[in-house]
């Protein structure tokens, strides 16, 4: 009886535990890289085509980029609200649809304006989620579910239910796609985008007071309010940030395939679930408060490496999903104090 009530009490994160959480994904990633170095042919092989680097290692980065963007924002959402943002897929689809519509217009506006409008739409969607969560007090899961359900429809309405293809003849479309596919000094442009967003996120979360606020609100909202922190504004911010990141990811994905297909973006790809997965693997707990941005990035990279591994070895999409599931289960079990108490008494005692 006593033991049970102990388990029900909130978990205490010691410093060691935090370190453990952040080092584990990195260790796993390094392990995967080492295994690949040994067993995969040409894993580190890099060649230059079309003035940019190609090779397995760059493919992982390329494919992981949108996921990293979403995962970064998702980390802040999970940390600040103890909830998740289910709507990122729908928001990405909406932003992609808007951008595609403006891009194929007969007299398109300048690219910067179009991108700004799309990102703005993402921000608005995020603010809407934030409004529901912080001012109406709805759980993040259900608040974002609303936009996820409706967003699929809205995205389809934006593009009139069609897949908009960006024509090769249009210069502005080419520029837009180049931002997703192109390279600058041999390195894909999307790497720069991800690097910039990641730096901004890191700066905001670790070097400004915003990060402290997010941790405070996620850790104990009531206490944060008594300390004079505007919890509603913090939540609004994380959701808006998530919306912008999702929109950016949507634009990158659109440029990737030169077309905006809301159905794929919003539904089939499970973008939101992948992003959540990356965060979980990265070691950010759903209990709120503590978060690990670096872990989320590594989590996204781990997932993508495993995926590429699977696809290159002629296995079907099904195995990829099974592998994802197994990874999540393992990670969750490792993170679960109850599980560690079962198998590794030593670890759990040391972490306390």
């Amino acid at each position, binding site marked *: 009886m006593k033991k049970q009530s102990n388990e029900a009490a909130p978990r205490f994160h010691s410093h060691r535990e935090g370190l453990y959480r952040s080092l584990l994904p990195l260790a796993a990633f390094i392990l995967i890289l080492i295994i690949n170095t040994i067993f995969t042919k040409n894993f580190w092989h890099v060649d230059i085509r079309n003035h940019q680097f190609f090779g397995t290692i760059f493919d992982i980065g390329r494919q992981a980029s949108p996921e990293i963007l979403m995962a970064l924002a998702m980390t802040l959402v999970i940390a600040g609200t103890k909830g998740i943002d289910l709507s990122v897929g729908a928001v990405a689809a909406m932003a992609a649809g808007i951008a595609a519509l403006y891009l194929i217009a007969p007299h398109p506006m300048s690219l910067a304006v179009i991108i700004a409008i799309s990102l703005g739409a993402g921000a608005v969607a995020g603010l809407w989620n934030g409004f529901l969560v912080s001012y109406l007090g709805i759980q993040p899961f259900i608040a974002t579910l609303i936009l996820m359900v409706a967003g699929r429809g809205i995205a389809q*309405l934006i593009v009139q239910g069609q897949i908009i293809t960006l024509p090769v003849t249009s210069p502005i479309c080419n520029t837009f796609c180049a931002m997703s596919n192109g390279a600058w000094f041999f390195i894909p442009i999307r790497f720069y985008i991800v690097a910039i967003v990641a730096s901004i996120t890191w700066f905001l979360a670790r070097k400004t007071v915003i990060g402290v606020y997010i941790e405070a609100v996620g850790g104990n909202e009531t206490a944060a309010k008594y300390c004079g922190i505007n919890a509603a504004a913090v939540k609004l911010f994380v959701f808006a940030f998530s919306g912008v990141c999702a929109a950016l990811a949507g634009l990158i994905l659109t440029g990737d395939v030169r077309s905006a297909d809301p159905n794929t973006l919003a539904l089939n790809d499970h973008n939101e679930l992948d992003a959540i997965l990356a965060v979980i693997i990265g070691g950010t707990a759903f209990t709120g408060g503590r978060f690990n941005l670096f872990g989320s990035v590594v989590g996204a990279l781990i997932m993508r490496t495993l995926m590429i591994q699977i696809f290159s070895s002629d296995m079907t999409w099904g195995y990829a999903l099974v592998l994802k599931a197994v990874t999540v289960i393992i990670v969750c079990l490792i993170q679960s104090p109850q599980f560690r108490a079962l198998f590794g008494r030593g670890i759990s005692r040391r972490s306390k």
Partner: protein
Amino acid sequence: MSKTVATTDSSKVTQQSRFLNARTIPLLATLAVFVLLYAIGAVRYHDRNFFTVQVFIDFLVDNSFLGIVAIGMTLVIITGGIDLSVGGLVALCTVVMAKLMTPAYMDPLTRLLIHCHILNAANACVTMYYVAPILSWLVAIAVGLTMGFLTGCAVRYFKIEPFIATLAGLFLARGLALVLSTESIDIDSGVVRGLNDVGFHLGRVQHFVPLAAGLGIVAIGLVMLFVAPFGRRLLAMGGAKPMLLGAISYAALFAIVLYILSRMGVQRWGVTIGGWVSAPVVVSAIGVIAGLVMLFCVPIGRKFIIAGRSKVFKTTAAWLLGIVTIALLLSHVGLNRWGVVLPSAWLSIPTVASIALIAAAVLALSVLPPGRRLIAQGGAVSMLAILIAYALILVSVVLFLRGLVYERVLLPFPALVLLAVVVIAAYISFFTAFGRNLYAVGGNEEAAHLMGLPVGRTKMLVYMVSGLCAAIAAIVMTVYQPAGDPIGATGMELDAIAVAVIGGTLLTGGAGNVFGTFIGVLIFGIIPTGIGMEGSLSSYWARVAIGSLLLIFVVLQRFLSAGAYRKD
């Protein structure tokens, strides 16, 4: 019986919140939305047979798998959890079944038997055709239960968030389905094909009306006696047994009269009785007679008279008016079939129905004791509740009768399964210890634990129930469209959550109702149908409409639960 009386006594204290509290308002709001949407549909698309039983049954059939999954989801959400794995699980089960039913993927045992010449190949194929489906269902159910068991273990023993555990389950199930087959497998099986034609024949009007009327009246009588305040007061006054007998004998009498009348008018109502007697007249006359009989010969009516002389005339008038409006409705039901031509075209069924509804509701509120008491107690909100309740009863009666008049209606297998699942889930959640544990665990886990309730076991079992529901949904799905599709049912888990929320289930746990979910499924069915019938609107509006409904309900719940059920 003693149980009923006991709850009557204990709930006296909280009588005001009995009908309207944070638990019932979402349910009533769901009902109101359903009635509203249905009424709009009936008026707008009545030339397209929206207002028929067939279309109604189509809602049930088209959404039966979603409904079954949503029922399981509702139970999980009541405990404060969530089950994201159901969509993948449904797909996995359909693929498993399809594989087992396809001769090319014969199971090892059969292959061994053929190999040892115990079974010859041709016979084996015939066996596959007829026996394999039943085995494959068992396997599918086992798969569902196992998956639920694993999720439940993760939640119970390792305290993994239900969201994450079931998310892993979603990927696992979907992945396994895709590993088993990358493309859709057609099912060709005698049993499955046969099930397509299996259903419950509701029969023709001549045989069905008396039965339905009798059953309906018994049901309404029972509800009035045991649920409505005035019935309970009568019980307290006169004892349960005579009341029950009175209600049953009254219903039987009514059923016999209707049956005789329907026999007489096998060809056309009224015509056989005499050329000048048209259906409305006959029905109204029956109504008046029935009303008088009810008041003076049946215990309930007599009790009324005894209870207060001054009320007799008012009550009589109310009963008569109510019955006459029902009779009018019935007469309009027979618009075409019974050859009755109405004076003017605008007097269509929806119009009459709505007028009758308003009249009945106003009467019920101002004259009938429960209505008056509610007004005295609770004011406007109570009025709304009683209005909705009355409206729903009337609409459902009219709806069923109207549809049944026109054609032989079949209640197909998927709809039957859905209804069965709803009824069983309702029984489990309201009348068993497990069901009460669900609410207790969702309401306050700590308190439930301290009370000695099996929190862990309940949580584990509820995920198994959800897995079982997913397996049943998969079975129904293979009957509906005989194929095992590894990418089928994509996003079903989120639709199921949406349905549960629209049905009044609180995502924080502790409050919810499988009947609400059932109505939520109907709403989910009505929206696309209505948008499809509108024609000019793109089908994507359905998503937007469902999202908006979700928003309205979530906000409503939030405000309702702000006082009563705040969890944090």
